[in-house]
Protein backbone atom coordinates (compact mmCIF):
# COMPACT_ATOMS: atom_id res chain seq x y z
CA UNK A 1 0.00 0.00 0.00
CA UNK A 2 1.80 3.13 -1.21
CA UNK A 3 1.96 6.17 0.98
CA UNK A 4 2.28 9.77 -0.08
CA UNK A 5 4.88 11.19 2.30
CA UNK A 6 5.91 14.81 2.70
CA UNK A 7 8.86 14.76 5.08
CA UNK A 8 10.05 17.98 6.77
CA UNK A 9 9.21 20.00 3.67
CA UNK A 10 10.37 23.59 3.39
CA UNK A 11 9.39 25.71 0.41
CA UNK A 12 11.21 28.88 -0.46
CA UNK A 13 10.16 31.00 -3.44
CA UNK A 14 12.71 33.07 -5.30
CA UNK A 15 12.81 36.68 -4.25
CA UNK A 16 10.94 36.17 -0.98
CA UNK A 17 12.68 36.71 2.31
CA UNK A 18 10.70 34.25 4.43
CA UNK A 19 10.07 30.64 3.45
CA UNK A 20 6.47 29.89 2.44
CA UNK A 21 6.55 26.56 4.26
CA UNK A 22 8.89 25.42 7.01
CA UNK A 23 9.46 21.81 8.02
CA UNK A 24 5.99 20.39 7.52
CA UNK A 25 5.52 16.63 7.50
CA UNK A 26 2.34 14.96 6.24
CA UNK A 27 1.64 11.36 5.31
CA UNK A 28 -1.37 10.26 3.27
CA UNK A 29 -2.17 6.56 3.06
CA UNK A 30 -4.65 4.83 0.79
CA UNK A 31 -8.15 5.60 2.05
CA UNK A 32 -7.02 8.68 3.98
CA UNK A 33 -8.73 12.00 3.43
CA UNK A 34 -6.27 14.58 4.69
CA UNK A 35 -7.40 18.20 4.68
CA UNK A 36 -5.08 21.18 5.08
CA UNK A 37 -6.73 24.23 6.62
CA UNK A 38 -5.46 27.63 7.63
CA UNK A 39 -5.67 31.26 6.61
CA UNK A 40 -4.19 32.65 3.40
CA UNK A 41 -0.42 32.58 3.24
CA UNK A 42 0.04 29.53 5.45
CA UNK A 43 1.49 27.50 2.59
CA UNK A 44 -1.40 25.08 2.02
CA UNK A 45 -1.25 25.31 -1.75
CA UNK A 46 2.55 25.25 -1.73
CA UNK A 47 2.47 21.92 0.11
CA UNK A 48 -0.09 20.54 -2.31
CA UNK A 49 2.06 21.65 -5.23
CA UNK A 50 5.06 19.90 -3.72
CA UNK A 51 2.99 16.71 -3.56
CA UNK A 52 1.88 17.32 -7.15
CA UNK A 53 5.50 17.74 -8.24
CA UNK A 54 4.83 21.26 -9.50
CA UNK A 55 6.97 22.96 -6.84
CA UNK A 56 10.39 21.76 -5.77
CA UNK A 57 10.93 21.89 -2.00
CA UNK A 58 13.99 23.76 -0.73
CA UNK A 59 14.52 21.11 1.91
CA UNK A 60 12.87 17.87 2.89
CA UNK A 61 11.68 15.02 0.71
CA UNK A 62 8.44 14.13 -1.01
CA UNK A 63 7.80 10.56 -2.08
CA UNK A 64 5.15 8.05 -3.06
CA UNK A 65 5.74 4.47 -1.93
CA UNK A 66 9.38 5.36 -1.42
CA UNK A 67 9.83 6.79 -4.95
CA UNK A 68 10.84 10.46 -4.76
CA UNK A 69 8.45 12.95 -6.41
CA UNK A 70 10.36 14.92 -9.02
CA UNK A 71 7.68 15.85 -11.55
CA UNK A 72 3.91 15.84 -11.95
CA UNK A 73 2.44 12.48 -12.77
CA UNK A 74 -0.91 10.81 -13.32
CA UNK A 75 -0.52 8.81 -10.10
CA UNK A 76 -1.37 12.10 -8.34
CA UNK A 77 -4.10 13.84 -10.30
CA UNK A 78 -4.78 17.45 -9.32
CA UNK A 79 -8.09 19.30 -9.31
CA UNK A 80 -7.62 23.05 -9.30
CA UNK A 81 -9.71 25.84 -7.88
CA UNK A 82 -10.33 27.34 -11.31
CA UNK A 83 -11.27 24.12 -13.01
CA UNK A 84 -8.47 24.56 -15.64
CA UNK A 85 -10.57 22.67 -18.17
CA UNK A 86 -9.82 22.81 -21.88
CA UNK A 87 -12.51 24.94 -23.56
CA UNK A 88 -11.81 23.58 -27.06
CA UNK A 89 -12.89 20.12 -25.92
CA UNK A 90 -16.33 18.86 -24.94
CA UNK A 91 -16.96 17.71 -21.37
CA UNK A 92 -16.43 14.11 -22.47
CA UNK A 93 -13.17 14.92 -24.27
CA UNK A 94 -11.95 16.79 -21.20
CA UNK A 95 -12.58 13.76 -19.03
CA UNK A 96 -10.89 11.50 -21.58
CA UNK A 97 -7.82 13.74 -21.81
CA UNK A 98 -5.53 11.53 -19.71
CA UNK A 99 -6.64 8.49 -21.70
CA UNK A 100 -5.91 10.26 -24.97
CA UNK A 101 -2.40 11.08 -23.75
CA UNK A 102 -1.90 7.38 -23.14
CA UNK A 103 -3.13 6.43 -26.59
CA UNK A 104 -6.32 4.68 -25.50
CA UNK A 105 -8.48 4.14 -28.62
CA UNK A 106 -11.31 6.66 -29.03
CA UNK A 107 -14.25 4.28 -28.57
CA UNK A 108 -12.83 2.96 -25.32
CA UNK A 109 -12.04 6.54 -24.27
CA UNK A 110 -15.61 7.72 -24.78
CA UNK A 111 -17.01 4.71 -22.95
CA UNK A 112 -14.82 5.26 -19.89
CA UNK A 113 -15.35 9.02 -19.92
CA UNK A 114 -19.12 8.51 -19.96
CA UNK A 115 -19.00 6.14 -17.00
CA UNK A 116 -16.91 8.69 -15.10
CA UNK A 117 -19.35 11.47 -15.96
CA UNK A 118 -22.07 9.26 -14.59
CA UNK A 119 -20.04 8.75 -11.43
CA UNK A 120 -19.88 12.54 -10.86
CA UNK A 121 -23.60 12.79 -11.68
CA UNK A 122 -23.21 14.49 -15.02
CA UNK A 123 -24.73 11.80 -17.23
CA UNK A 124 -25.80 13.18 -20.54
CA UNK A 125 -23.58 16.27 -20.37
CA UNK A 126 -20.77 14.64 -22.36
CA UNK A 127 -21.37 16.63 -25.53
CA UNK A 128 -21.67 19.96 -23.73
CA UNK A 129 -19.07 22.63 -24.27
CA UNK A 130 -17.27 23.81 -21.18
CA UNK A 131 -18.68 27.33 -21.32
CA UNK A 132 -22.17 25.90 -21.33
CA UNK A 133 -21.62 24.38 -17.88
CA UNK A 134 -22.18 25.99 -14.49
CA UNK A 135 -19.34 26.35 -11.99
CA UNK A 136 -20.42 23.25 -10.09
CA UNK A 137 -20.71 21.19 -13.26
CA UNK A 138 -17.28 22.34 -14.36
CA UNK A 139 -15.77 21.17 -11.10
CA UNK A 140 -17.48 17.80 -11.56
CA UNK A 141 -15.90 17.54 -14.99
CA UNK A 142 -12.55 18.47 -13.44
CA UNK A 143 -12.98 15.76 -10.85
CA UNK A 144 -13.93 13.16 -13.46
CA UNK A 145 -10.96 14.23 -15.58
CA UNK A 146 -8.63 13.66 -12.62
CA UNK A 147 -10.20 10.28 -11.84
CA UNK A 148 -9.74 9.18 -15.46
CA UNK A 149 -6.00 9.13 -14.85
CA UNK A 150 -6.69 6.36 -12.30
CA UNK A 151 -4.59 8.11 -9.68
CA UNK A 152 -3.43 6.57 -6.42
CA UNK A 153 -3.86 9.98 -4.85
CA UNK A 154 -6.17 12.89 -5.56
CA UNK A 155 -4.83 16.35 -4.84
CA UNK A 156 -7.60 18.91 -4.47
CA UNK A 157 -6.66 22.59 -4.40
CA UNK A 158 -9.78 24.31 -3.03
CA UNK A 159 -11.90 22.74 -5.74
CA UNK A 160 -15.12 23.96 -4.15
CA UNK A 161 -13.83 27.42 -3.24
CA UNK A 162 -15.58 29.27 -6.04
CA UNK A 163 -18.96 27.56 -5.68
CA UNK A 164 -22.10 28.81 -3.96
CA UNK A 165 -23.03 27.24 -0.63
CA UNK A 166 -25.70 24.85 -1.89
CA UNK A 167 -23.67 23.57 -4.83
CA UNK A 168 -20.75 23.24 -2.49
CA UNK A 169 -22.67 20.99 -0.12
CA UNK A 170 -23.80 18.76 -2.95
CA UNK A 171 -20.24 18.53 -4.24
CA UNK A 172 -19.02 17.52 -0.81
CA UNK A 173 -21.23 14.46 -0.77
CA UNK A 174 -20.21 13.63 -4.34
CA UNK A 175 -16.58 13.82 -3.24
CA UNK A 176 -17.25 11.59 -0.25
CA UNK A 177 -19.11 9.05 -2.39
CA UNK A 178 -16.21 8.86 -4.83
CA UNK A 179 -13.67 8.60 -2.06
CA UNK A 180 -15.60 5.92 -0.19
CA UNK A 181 -16.11 3.89 -3.36
CA UNK A 182 -12.50 4.02 -4.52
CA UNK A 183 -10.54 4.31 -1.27
CA UNK A 184 -8.15 6.61 -3.12
CA UNK A 185 -5.95 8.73 -0.84
CA UNK A 186 -6.95 12.39 -0.86
CA UNK A 187 -4.96 15.49 0.04
CA UNK A 188 -7.13 18.58 -0.04
CA UNK A 189 -6.71 22.27 0.63
CA UNK A 190 -9.66 24.33 1.83
CA UNK A 191 -10.66 27.53 3.59
CA UNK A 192 -13.88 26.00 4.85
CA UNK A 193 -13.86 24.82 8.46
CA UNK A 194 -17.11 22.88 8.14
CA UNK A 195 -15.97 21.48 4.83
CA UNK A 196 -12.81 20.17 6.46
CA UNK A 197 -14.80 18.46 9.21
CA UNK A 198 -17.28 16.88 6.81
CA UNK A 199 -14.66 15.50 4.46
CA UNK A 200 -11.53 14.71 6.43
CA UNK A 201 -10.25 11.70 8.24
CA UNK A 202 -7.40 13.91 9.37
CA UNK A 203 -7.14 17.70 9.48
CA UNK A 204 -3.80 19.48 9.53
CA UNK A 205 -3.99 23.08 10.74
CA UNK A 206 -1.35 25.33 9.25
CA UNK A 207 -0.34 28.77 10.46
CA UNK A 208 1.28 31.49 8.36
CA UNK A 209 4.59 33.30 8.59
CA UNK A 210 6.31 30.93 7.75
CA UNK A 211 3.81 28.21 6.96
CA UNK A 212 3.99 25.45 9.56
CA UNK A 213 1.74 22.75 10.96
CA UNK A 214 0.34 23.70 14.38
CA UNK A 215 -2.25 21.01 15.12
CA UNK A 216 -3.47 17.74 13.72
CA UNK A 217 -6.97 16.39 14.32
CA UNK A 218 -8.15 12.88 13.64
CA UNK A 219 -11.83 13.10 12.74
CA UNK A 220 -14.45 10.46 12.03
CA UNK A 221 -17.37 12.31 10.47
CA UNK A 222 -16.55 11.32 6.90
CA UNK A 223 -16.21 7.67 7.89
CA UNK A 224 -19.64 7.90 9.50
CA UNK A 225 -20.99 9.21 6.20
CA UNK A 226 -19.22 6.40 4.35
CA UNK A 227 -20.84 3.94 6.77
CA UNK A 228 -24.27 5.19 5.69
CA UNK A 229 -25.19 7.98 8.09
CA UNK A 230 -26.92 11.01 6.52
CA UNK A 231 -24.87 14.19 6.21
CA UNK A 232 -27.60 16.24 7.92
CA UNK A 233 -27.61 13.97 10.98
CA UNK A 234 -23.83 14.18 11.19
CA UNK A 235 -23.84 17.98 11.03
CA UNK A 236 -26.60 18.15 13.67
CA UNK A 237 -24.54 16.03 16.06
CA UNK A 238 -23.32 18.11 19.07
CA UNK A 239 -19.93 16.46 18.60
CA UNK A 240 -19.76 18.13 15.17
CA UNK A 241 -20.38 21.58 16.68
CA UNK A 242 -17.79 20.91 19.38
CA UNK A 243 -15.22 19.83 16.81
CA UNK A 244 -15.95 22.95 14.76
CA UNK A 245 -15.30 25.13 17.78
CA UNK A 246 -12.08 23.35 18.57
CA UNK A 247 -10.86 23.56 14.97
CA UNK A 248 -11.72 27.26 14.73
CA UNK A 249 -9.80 27.92 17.95
CA UNK A 250 -6.79 26.02 16.63
CA UNK A 251 -6.76 28.10 13.44
CA UNK A 252 -6.92 31.39 15.36
CA UNK A 253 -4.39 30.30 17.98
CA UNK A 254 -1.98 29.54 15.18
CA UNK A 255 -2.64 33.01 13.89
CA UNK A 256 -1.83 34.67 17.23
CA UNK A 257 1.34 32.67 17.85
Amino acid at each position, binding site marked *: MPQLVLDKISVHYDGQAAPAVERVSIAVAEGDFVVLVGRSGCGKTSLLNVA*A*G*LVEPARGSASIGGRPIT*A*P*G*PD*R*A*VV*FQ*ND*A*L*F*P*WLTARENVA*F*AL*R*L*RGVPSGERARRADSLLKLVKLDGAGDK*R*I*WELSGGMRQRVGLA*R*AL*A*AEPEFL*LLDEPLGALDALTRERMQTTLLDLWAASRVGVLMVTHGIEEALVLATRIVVLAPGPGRAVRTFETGFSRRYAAGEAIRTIKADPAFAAARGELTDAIFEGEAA
Partner: protein
Amino acid sequence: MSVTSYSERPTTRTDESSALSVPWSRPHPKRRGISARAVSAITILAVLAAWALSARLQLVSPVFLPSPIAVWTKFVVVARDGFVDATLAQHVVASLGRVFAALVAAVLVGVPVGLAIGISTIGRGIFDPLLEFLRPIPPLAYLPLVIIWFGIGEPSKILVITIAMLAPVALSTASGVRGVSQERINAARSLGATRAQLVRHVILPSALPSILTGLRIALGAGWSTLVAAELVAATRGLGFMIQSAAQFLVTDVVVMGILVIATIAFVLEFVIRRIERRLVPWAGRD
Protein backbone atom coordinates in the same frame (compact mmCIF):
# COMPACT_ATOMS: atom_id res chain seq x y z
CA MET B 1 -29.44 62.96 -34.32
CA SER B 2 -26.46 65.16 -33.69
CA VAL B 3 -28.65 68.03 -32.61
CA THR B 4 -30.51 66.05 -29.97
CA SER B 5 -27.30 64.53 -28.66
CA TYR B 6 -26.06 68.03 -27.93
CA SER B 7 -28.97 68.43 -25.59
CA GLU B 8 -27.80 65.52 -23.48
CA ARG B 9 -24.64 67.31 -22.59
CA PRO B 10 -25.11 69.55 -19.56
CA THR B 11 -23.01 72.37 -20.81
CA THR B 12 -21.69 75.31 -18.88
CA ARG B 13 -19.97 76.88 -21.82
CA THR B 14 -21.46 80.27 -22.44
CA ASP B 15 -20.21 81.93 -25.60
CA GLU B 16 -20.89 79.70 -28.64
CA SER B 17 -23.07 76.96 -27.26
CA SER B 18 -25.64 79.28 -25.74
CA ALA B 19 -25.72 81.16 -29.01
CA LEU B 20 -26.79 77.89 -30.63
CA SER B 21 -29.77 77.86 -28.26
CA VAL B 22 -30.12 74.09 -28.34
CA PRO B 23 -33.39 73.03 -26.73
CA TRP B 24 -32.76 71.29 -23.46
CA SER B 25 -34.76 68.09 -23.34
CA ARG B 26 -34.45 64.97 -21.29
CA PRO B 27 -33.36 62.00 -23.36
CA HIS B 28 -36.46 60.09 -24.29
CA PRO B 29 -36.19 56.49 -23.06
CA LYS B 30 -37.90 55.04 -26.13
CA ARG B 31 -36.14 57.20 -28.67
CA ARG B 32 -35.20 55.14 -31.69
CA GLY B 33 -31.44 55.11 -32.13
CA ILE B 34 -29.91 54.87 -35.56
CA SER B 35 -27.54 51.96 -35.98
CA ALA B 36 -23.86 52.46 -36.80
CA ARG B 37 -24.40 50.22 -39.80
CA ALA B 38 -27.05 52.54 -41.20
CA VAL B 39 -24.77 55.52 -40.71
CA SER B 40 -22.03 53.64 -42.57
CA ALA B 41 -24.37 52.87 -45.45
CA ILE B 42 -25.42 56.52 -45.65
CA THR B 43 -21.78 57.63 -45.58
CA ILE B 44 -20.87 55.32 -48.45
CA LEU B 45 -23.85 56.46 -50.49
CA ALA B 46 -22.96 60.09 -49.80
CA VAL B 47 -19.38 59.58 -50.98
CA LEU B 48 -20.63 57.83 -54.13
CA ALA B 49 -23.11 60.63 -54.76
CA ALA B 50 -20.44 63.30 -54.31
CA TRP B 51 -18.18 61.37 -56.65
CA ALA B 52 -20.90 60.99 -59.29
CA LEU B 53 -21.90 64.63 -58.97
CA SER B 54 -18.40 66.02 -59.31
CA ALA B 55 -17.78 63.82 -62.34
CA ARG B 56 -21.12 64.82 -63.85
CA LEU B 57 -20.49 68.54 -63.34
CA GLN B 58 -17.00 67.99 -64.76
CA LEU B 59 -15.44 69.64 -61.72
CA VAL B 60 -12.37 67.55 -62.37
CA SER B 61 -11.12 66.15 -65.64
CA PRO B 62 -12.07 62.48 -66.20
CA VAL B 63 -8.34 61.74 -66.51
CA PHE B 64 -8.08 62.50 -62.81
CA LEU B 65 -11.48 61.31 -61.69
CA PRO B 66 -13.56 59.11 -63.99
CA SER B 67 -17.24 58.84 -63.14
CA PRO B 68 -18.60 55.86 -61.19
CA ILE B 69 -20.42 54.75 -64.30
CA ALA B 70 -17.23 54.84 -66.34
CA VAL B 71 -15.51 52.75 -63.69
CA TRP B 72 -18.36 50.27 -63.62
CA THR B 73 -18.38 50.04 -67.43
CA LYS B 74 -14.63 49.45 -67.33
CA PHE B 75 -15.16 46.75 -64.72
CA VAL B 76 -17.56 44.93 -67.05
CA VAL B 77 -15.26 45.37 -70.04
CA VAL B 78 -12.13 44.21 -68.24
CA ALA B 79 -14.00 41.30 -66.69
CA ARG B 80 -15.06 40.20 -70.17
CA ASP B 81 -12.19 41.20 -72.45
CA GLY B 82 -9.32 41.63 -70.05
CA PHE B 83 -6.68 44.30 -69.68
CA VAL B 84 -3.00 43.92 -70.65
CA ASP B 85 -3.40 40.36 -71.89
CA ALA B 86 -5.37 38.95 -68.98
CA THR B 87 -8.98 39.03 -67.85
CA LEU B 88 -9.89 40.53 -64.51
CA ALA B 89 -10.47 37.05 -63.11
CA GLN B 90 -6.95 36.03 -64.14
CA HIS B 91 -5.51 39.11 -62.47
CA VAL B 92 -7.48 38.36 -59.31
CA VAL B 93 -6.44 34.71 -59.30
CA ALA B 94 -2.79 35.65 -59.80
CA SER B 95 -2.90 38.09 -56.87
CA LEU B 96 -4.89 35.83 -54.58
CA GLY B 97 -2.55 32.96 -55.41
CA ARG B 98 0.47 35.01 -54.37
CA VAL B 99 -1.16 36.23 -51.17
CA PHE B 100 -2.28 32.74 -50.19
CA ALA B 101 1.05 31.12 -51.08
CA ALA B 102 2.68 33.76 -48.90
CA LEU B 103 0.15 33.14 -46.12
CA VAL B 104 0.89 29.41 -46.13
CA ALA B 105 4.62 30.10 -46.04
CA ALA B 106 4.19 32.68 -43.28
CA VAL B 107 2.18 30.21 -41.19
CA LEU B 108 4.64 27.35 -41.76
CA VAL B 109 7.51 29.55 -40.61
CA GLY B 110 5.78 32.04 -38.32
CA VAL B 111 3.83 29.67 -36.07
CA PRO B 112 6.86 27.50 -35.13
CA VAL B 113 8.93 30.66 -34.64
CA GLY B 114 6.24 32.17 -32.41
CA LEU B 115 6.02 28.91 -30.51
CA ALA B 116 9.78 28.93 -29.98
CA ILE B 117 9.65 32.53 -28.75
CA GLY B 118 6.78 31.73 -26.42
CA ILE B 119 8.07 28.55 -24.81
CA SER B 120 11.85 28.80 -24.81
CA THR B 121 14.23 31.43 -23.56
CA ILE B 122 16.75 30.50 -26.24
CA GLY B 123 14.05 30.71 -28.91
CA ARG B 124 13.11 34.16 -27.68
CA GLY B 125 16.75 35.20 -27.62
CA ILE B 126 17.25 34.11 -31.22
CA PHE B 127 14.05 35.24 -32.93
CA ASP B 128 12.92 38.29 -30.99
CA PRO B 129 15.66 40.64 -32.24
CA LEU B 130 15.36 39.28 -35.80
CA LEU B 131 11.63 39.92 -35.89
CA GLU B 132 11.96 43.31 -34.27
CA PHE B 133 14.49 44.17 -36.97
CA LEU B 134 12.28 42.93 -39.78
CA ARG B 135 8.95 44.25 -38.55
CA PRO B 136 9.31 48.01 -39.06
CA ILE B 137 10.97 47.85 -42.51
CA PRO B 138 8.60 48.87 -45.31
CA PRO B 139 8.36 46.18 -48.03
CA LEU B 140 9.46 48.65 -50.71
CA ALA B 141 12.77 48.98 -48.87
CA TYR B 142 13.73 45.32 -48.99
CA LEU B 143 12.16 44.66 -52.37
CA PRO B 144 15.34 45.59 -54.33
CA LEU B 145 17.45 43.32 -52.17
CA VAL B 146 15.06 40.40 -52.67
CA ILE B 147 15.29 40.97 -56.45
CA ILE B 148 19.09 41.04 -56.34
CA TRP B 149 19.13 37.79 -54.38
CA PHE B 150 16.30 35.82 -55.92
CA GLY B 151 15.68 37.39 -59.31
CA ILE B 152 12.43 38.71 -60.72
CA GLY B 153 10.48 35.45 -60.78
CA GLU B 154 7.39 34.42 -58.90
CA PRO B 155 9.32 33.32 -55.75
CA SER B 156 10.56 36.86 -55.17
CA LYS B 157 7.04 38.27 -55.19
CA ILE B 158 5.79 35.61 -52.80
CA LEU B 159 8.84 36.11 -50.60
CA VAL B 160 8.24 39.85 -50.27
CA ILE B 161 4.65 39.25 -49.18
CA THR B 162 5.74 36.46 -46.84
CA ILE B 163 8.25 38.72 -45.11
CA ALA B 164 5.51 41.27 -44.52
CA MET B 165 3.26 38.57 -43.04
CA LEU B 166 5.88 36.83 -40.93
CA ALA B 167 6.08 39.24 -38.01
CA PRO B 168 2.34 39.48 -37.31
CA VAL B 169 1.95 35.70 -37.44
CA ALA B 170 4.97 34.95 -35.25
CA LEU B 171 4.34 37.71 -32.72
CA SER B 172 0.65 36.84 -32.32
CA THR B 173 1.54 33.18 -31.88
CA ALA B 174 4.14 34.08 -29.27
CA SER B 175 1.74 36.27 -27.33
CA GLY B 176 -0.90 33.54 -27.47
CA VAL B 177 1.59 30.98 -26.20
CA ARG B 178 2.74 33.23 -23.39
CA GLY B 179 -0.88 33.83 -22.40
CA VAL B 180 -1.65 30.16 -21.73
CA SER B 181 -2.70 29.88 -18.11
CA GLN B 182 -0.21 28.18 -15.84
CA GLU B 183 -3.03 26.27 -14.19
CA ARG B 184 -4.06 24.75 -17.50
CA ILE B 185 -0.49 23.64 -18.13
CA ASN B 186 -0.18 22.23 -14.61
CA ALA B 187 -3.44 20.34 -15.05
CA ALA B 188 -2.19 18.72 -18.26
CA ARG B 189 1.17 17.87 -16.72
CA SER B 190 -0.46 16.28 -13.71
CA LEU B 191 -2.57 14.19 -16.09
CA GLY B 192 0.66 12.83 -17.54
CA ALA B 193 1.33 15.08 -20.56
CA THR B 194 4.86 15.02 -21.93
CA ARG B 195 6.43 18.23 -23.22
CA ALA B 196 5.48 17.43 -26.81
CA GLN B 197 1.92 16.52 -25.80
CA LEU B 198 1.71 19.74 -23.83
CA VAL B 199 2.54 21.76 -26.94
CA ARG B 200 0.17 19.83 -29.20
CA HIS B 201 -2.80 19.32 -26.90
CA VAL B 202 -2.71 22.39 -24.67
CA ILE B 203 -0.46 25.22 -25.83
CA LEU B 204 -1.38 25.29 -29.53
CA PRO B 205 -5.15 25.07 -28.98
CA SER B 206 -4.91 27.70 -26.24
CA ALA B 207 -2.99 30.00 -28.57
CA LEU B 208 -5.29 29.40 -31.54
CA PRO B 209 -7.48 32.50 -31.05
CA SER B 210 -4.38 34.64 -30.95
CA ILE B 211 -2.88 32.87 -33.98
CA LEU B 212 -6.04 33.53 -35.99
CA THR B 213 -5.92 37.19 -35.04
CA GLY B 214 -2.34 37.16 -36.32
CA LEU B 215 -3.50 35.68 -39.61
CA ARG B 216 -6.04 38.45 -40.00
CA ILE B 217 -3.43 41.12 -39.43
CA ALA B 218 -1.06 39.26 -41.76
CA LEU B 219 -3.61 39.15 -44.57
CA GLY B 220 -4.01 42.90 -44.25
CA ALA B 221 -0.26 43.37 -44.39
CA GLY B 222 -0.07 40.97 -47.33
CA TRP B 223 -2.59 42.87 -49.40
CA SER B 224 -0.80 46.13 -48.74
CA THR B 225 2.44 44.58 -49.95
CA LEU B 226 0.85 43.04 -53.02
CA VAL B 227 1.09 46.09 -55.25
CA ALA B 228 4.73 46.59 -54.32
CA ALA B 229 5.48 42.93 -55.03
CA GLU B 230 3.74 43.07 -58.38
CA LEU B 231 5.75 46.09 -59.45
CA VAL B 232 8.48 43.62 -60.25
CA ALA B 233 8.13 42.37 -63.80
CA ALA B 234 4.80 40.72 -63.22
CA THR B 235 2.56 39.97 -66.21
CA ARG B 236 -0.54 39.39 -64.15
CA GLY B 237 -2.08 40.52 -60.89
CA LEU B 238 -4.21 43.36 -59.59
CA GLY B 239 -1.17 45.41 -58.56
CA PHE B 240 0.37 44.90 -61.98
CA MET B 241 -2.91 45.85 -63.64
CA ILE B 242 -3.10 49.11 -61.71
CA GLN B 243 0.54 49.89 -62.43
CA SER B 244 0.22 49.38 -66.17
CA ALA B 245 -3.01 51.33 -66.29
CA ALA B 246 -1.35 54.19 -64.44
CA GLN B 247 1.48 54.33 -66.97
CA PHE B 248 -1.05 54.97 -69.73
CA LEU B 249 -3.22 57.22 -67.57
CA VAL B 250 -6.15 54.81 -67.83
CA THR B 251 -7.52 56.16 -64.61
CA ASP B 252 -10.80 54.25 -64.69
CA VAL B 253 -8.89 50.95 -64.57
CA VAL B 254 -6.77 52.29 -61.71
CA VAL B 255 -9.86 53.21 -59.70
CA MET B 256 -11.55 49.95 -60.62
CA GLY B 257 -8.49 47.96 -59.51
CA ILE B 258 -8.38 49.79 -56.19
CA LEU B 259 -12.05 49.01 -55.59
CA VAL B 260 -11.53 45.34 -56.48
CA ILE B 261 -8.62 45.08 -54.04
CA ALA B 262 -10.68 46.75 -51.32
CA THR B 263 -13.62 44.43 -51.95
CA ILE B 264 -11.48 41.31 -51.83
CA ALA B 265 -9.80 42.45 -48.60
CA PHE B 266 -13.23 43.08 -47.11
CA VAL B 267 -14.47 39.63 -48.13
CA LEU B 268 -11.34 37.95 -46.78
CA GLU B 269 -11.72 39.70 -43.45
CA PHE B 270 -15.33 38.54 -43.29
CA VAL B 271 -14.37 34.95 -44.14
CA ILE B 272 -11.64 34.87 -41.49
CA ARG B 273 -14.04 36.16 -38.87
CA ARG B 274 -16.43 33.35 -39.77
CA ILE B 275 -13.61 30.83 -39.55
CA GLU B 276 -12.67 32.24 -36.14
CA ARG B 277 -16.19 31.79 -34.90
CA ARG B 278 -16.20 28.20 -36.15
CA LEU B 279 -12.76 27.24 -34.90
CA VAL B 280 -12.55 29.06 -31.60
CA PRO B 281 -16.09 29.51 -30.34
CA TRP B 282 -14.72 29.60 -26.80
CA ALA B 283 -12.62 32.74 -27.38
CA GLY B 284 -13.57 35.34 -24.82
CA ARG B 285 -15.80 32.91 -22.99
CA ASP B 286 -13.37 30.98 -20.82
